[in-house]
C-alpha cells in the first residue's frame, strides 16, 4: 500500500511517501523551488517521492492532506464577521488565495498530479500528533501539540496507544502560544514563521530571572496561565485576528517602545523581552506537561507543532516534568504534518499495524558519484577525487582542523529545518575566531547567534550535561544542553552566552562518514566536536543538488566543498566566484 502525505498552502509545503508502512521519502518543496518556506503545492516534492520509490501516481492508493480546509475557512470567516469592519484589508488580501487554491485542494491534487484515487483530510493537530506518535519508538505516549493555529485548535493534549490517538483537550484560536511567540518575534523586528528561533537564541542575553525581569511581569498581563497550563490572552494586546500585523499599539506601549525596525540595534530591552517571552513559554509548557502527565500517567511524551522546535525548552523537559522519555520528529512544524497525515491514514484510519520507527532524517534526494562527476565535468569545474571513504575522512578532518570552512554534501538530504550532516557547513569549533570567520565568510548572520556543535553520541556526555540516556531528539538538534564548564572555553564558537549548546549527536551506524569525520577531527584537535551549520546562502533554503551546493560555495567564502568523493577548492575555480550577499534577503 502506497500513501502520499501532503502539506501546503500555509508555509513549508512538503510531501512524503509511505510504502507498506515504511517512510521511504520526505522532502520540503522549498528545496526544489529555492524559495524559503515555500507554501505552494509540492508538485516537485511529490515527483521526487515517486521517483525515489520507483512508482507512478497510478500506484498511489491514497493521498492524505494535513488539515481540513473548510474548517479553517470557517474560522477565517468567523474572524471577519466578529471583527467587521476592521478586517476589510485582510479579507481583500486573503480571500483570493482561498478561492483559487485553499478551498480547491482535491481539484488541485487531481489536476497537478493527474490523480484519480482517494483523498483523505486529517484534522491539523491530529496530523501533528500522528507525525510524532505514530513514528515514535513508543507503544504508548502522552502527546502535546502546540503551534500557531490549525483549523481552530492551537494547543492540544492527548494520548496515543498502539494505533489510536485521542486528543483530549485543546485551546482554541485566538489564544495561541505559537502566535504569542510570533507576535513578539514581529515586535522584535524579525520575520514571522521564519525567525522565531532567533528570538529563542536572543533570550539568554536578557534577564532570565522572572523576579527581576520587568517584561516578564508585563507579559503576564498579556497571558493568564492557569495551574493546569491552560492559558488565555488579553486580546487587546494583539491584532493578528483581523490584521496582517501582529502586536497592537497597546502591546507596544506595554513593552516601552515601537516595533523594532529590522536593521535597528538590538538593545538590552529587546534582549529582556526575548528572555521574558522564553520564560512565559517555559512556564506554560511545564504546567501543561505536568497536567498532561496527571491526565495520562504515561512516562513517554511526544511533542509536535512549531513550538516543539524550541530546543532551549525541549532540553529542560525531562528535568522539569515527571516524563522519563521524550521524542520529537525533526520536522515538527507544518511540513512534518504531511508524515502525520500519511501515517494516520495508514495506521489509524486503515488500521494497519505500526511497523515503522523514525530513526533517520535522511529522506531526501541523493546524487551518485557519477552524477556529481558529470555535473563537475560539464561545467569545467576543477576538482580532485578521493580514493575511498577513509581518505575522505582523513583529508577533510585535516582541512577543518586547519581552519578551513568546508561544505559537506553527502548522501540523502535531511528532512526538516536543520542541516544534520548531509547538507552541512563544517568548521573548527576550537578556533576562538571561527564564529567571526563563519559570519564574515558565509553566514552573515546576527552576532548574537552562536553556531551549533555536532558530537558523536558516545562522546556527548563528556562535553555536555545531557539527559541520560541521551534522548533521540538530540540527534535532530532539538535539545539544548549546557556545555560542561571545563570545555566552554575550548569550544567557544559553539558555546552560547549562557554556556549552552544546541548540539547534534550522531550515533554509530546512523551516518558513518559523518561520524568518522568527527572522530578523526578529534584526533587532531583533542576535541571530537565540529561546528555544523546549514549549507545555504542567507535567505535561501538548504542546498539540495550539486549545482545548489557549488553555487553556494562560489557565492560565499566556503573554502572547500566535498561532494561525494570529489573535493572542490574555491580558489581553483575563480571563474565562478560571485557575491551572494548582493542578493541575500533574510
Amino acid at each position, binding site marked *: 500500500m502506497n500513501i502520499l502525505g501532503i502539506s501546503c498552502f500555509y508555509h513549508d509545503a512538503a510531501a512524503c511517501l509511505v510504502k507498506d508502512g515504511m517512510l521511504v521519502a520526505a522532502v520540503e518543496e522549498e528545496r526544489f523551488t529555492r524559495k524559503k518556506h515555500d507554501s505552494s503545492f509540492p508538485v516537485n516534492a511529490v515527483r521526487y517521492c515517486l521517483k525515489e520509490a520507483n512508482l507512478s501516481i497510478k500506484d498511489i492508493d491514497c493521498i492524505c492532506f494535513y488539515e481540513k480546509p473548510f474548517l479553517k475557512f470557517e474560522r477565517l470567516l468567523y474572524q471577519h464577521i466578529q471583527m*467587521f469592519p476592521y478586517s476589510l484589508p485582510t479579507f481583500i488580501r486573503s480571500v483570493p488565495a482561498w478561492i483559487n487554491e485553499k478551498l480547491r485542494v482535491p481539484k488541485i491534487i487531481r489536476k497537478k498530479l493527474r490523480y484519480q484515487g482517494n483523498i483523505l483530510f486529517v484534522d491539523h493537530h491530529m496530523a501533528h500528533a500522528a507525525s510524532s506518535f505514530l513514528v515514535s519508538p513508543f507503544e504508548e505516549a502522552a502527546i502535546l501539540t502546540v503551534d500557531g493555529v490549525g483549523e481552530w485548535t492551537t494547543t492540544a493534549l492527548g494520548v496515543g496507544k498502539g494505533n489510536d490517538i485521542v486528543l483530549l483537550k485543546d485551546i482554541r484560536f485566538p489564544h495561541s502560544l505559537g502566535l504569542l511567540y510570533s507576535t513578539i518575534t514581529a515586535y522584535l523586528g524579525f520575520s514571522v514563521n521564519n525567525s522565531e528561533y532567533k528570538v529563542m537564541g536572543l533570550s539568554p542575553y536578557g534577564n532570565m530571572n522572572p523576579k527581576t525581569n520587568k517584561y516578564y511581569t508585563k507579559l503576564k498581563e498579556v497571558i493568564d496561565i492557569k495551574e493546569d497550563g491552560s492559558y*488565555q*490572552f488579553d486580546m487587546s494586546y494583539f491584532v493578528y485576528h483581523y490584521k496582517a500585523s501582529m502586536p497592537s499599539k497597546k502591546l507596544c506601549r506595554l513593552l516601552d517602545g515601537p516595533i523594532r525596525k529590522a536593521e535597528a540595534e538590538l538593545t538590552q530591552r529587546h534582549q529582556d523581552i526575548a528572555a521574558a517571552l522564553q520564560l512565559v513559554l517555559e512556564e506554560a509548557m511545564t504546567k501543561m506537561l505536568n497536567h498532561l502527565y496527571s491526565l495520562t500517567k504515561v512516562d513517554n511524551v511526544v511533542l509536535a507543532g512549531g513550538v516543539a522546535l524550541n530546543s532551549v525548552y525541549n532540553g529542560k523537559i525531562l528535568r522539569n516534568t515527571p516524563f522519563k522519555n521524550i521524542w520529537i520528529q525533526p520536522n515538527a512544524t507544518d511540513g512534518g504534518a504531511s508524515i502525520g497525515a500519511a501515517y494516520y491514514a495508514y495506521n489509524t484510519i486503515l488500521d494497519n499495524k505500526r511497523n515503522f520507527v523514525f530513526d533517520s532524517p535522511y529522506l531526501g534526494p541523493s546524487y551518485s558519484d557519477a552524477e556529481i562527476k558529470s555535473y563537475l565535468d560539464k561545467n569545467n569545474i576543477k576538482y580532485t577525487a578521493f580514493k575511498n571513504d577513509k581518505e575522505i575522512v582523513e583529508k577533510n578532518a585535516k582541512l577543518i582542523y586547519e581552519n578551513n570552512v568546508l561544505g559537506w554534501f553527502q548522501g540523502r538530504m535531511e528532512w526538516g529545518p536543520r542541516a544534520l550532516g548531509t547538507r552541512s557547513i563544517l568548521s573548527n569549533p576550537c578556533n576562538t575566531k571561527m564564529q567571526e570567520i563563519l559570519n564574515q565568510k558565509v553566514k552573515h548572520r546576527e552576532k548574537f547567534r552562536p553556531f551549533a556543535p555536532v558530537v558523536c553520541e558516545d562522546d556527548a556526555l563528556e562535553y555536555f550535561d545531557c539527559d541520560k540516556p541521551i534522548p533521540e531528539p538530540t540527534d535532530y538538534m532539538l535539545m539544548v544542553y549546557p556545555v560542561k564548564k571545563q570545555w566552554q572555553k575550548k569550544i567557544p564558537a559553539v558555546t552560547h552566552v549562557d554556556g549552552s549548546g544546541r548540539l547534534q549527536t550522531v550515533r554509530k551506524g546512523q551516518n558513518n562518514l559523518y561520524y568518522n569525520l568527527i572522530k578523526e577531527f578529534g584526533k587532531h584537535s583533542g576535541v571530537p566536536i565540529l561546528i555544523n551549520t546549514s549549507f545555504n546562502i542567507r535567505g535561501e533554503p538548504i542546498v539540495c543538488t550539486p549545482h545548489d551546493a557549488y553555487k553556494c560555495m562560489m557565492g560565499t567564502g566556503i573554502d572547500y566543498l566535498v561532494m561525494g568523493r570529489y573535493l572542490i577548492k574555491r580558489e581553483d575555480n575563480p571563474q565562478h566566484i560571485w557575491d551572494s550577499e548582493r542578493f541575500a534577503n533574510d
Partner: protein
Amino acid sequence: MALKKISKGVHAGFKEFGESINKIVNALLLSITYFVGVGSASAIAKLQKRKLLDLKTSKSKETYYQELMLSKKSKKDYYRQF
C-alpha cells in the same frame, strides 16, 4: 529587431495594465462582498449577541481548556474537508 522590442514592451505594458485592472476589480468585488455578506452576518451575530471568537478574558474560569475528545472517526468523515 526594434519592432520585436517594441512589441515585447507593449505586451508587457498591457499585461501590467491587465493585472492592475484585475486587482482593482477584485478589490471592488471583494469589498462589496465584505460589506454585504460579512457585514450583514456581523449585524445578525451582534443582534443575537453571538460571540464567534473568544476575545473576552474571564480569569474566574478554573481552566481555559476545552473538551475535545477527538479520536478515530468513520472513514467517510476523512473524505470530507470539514
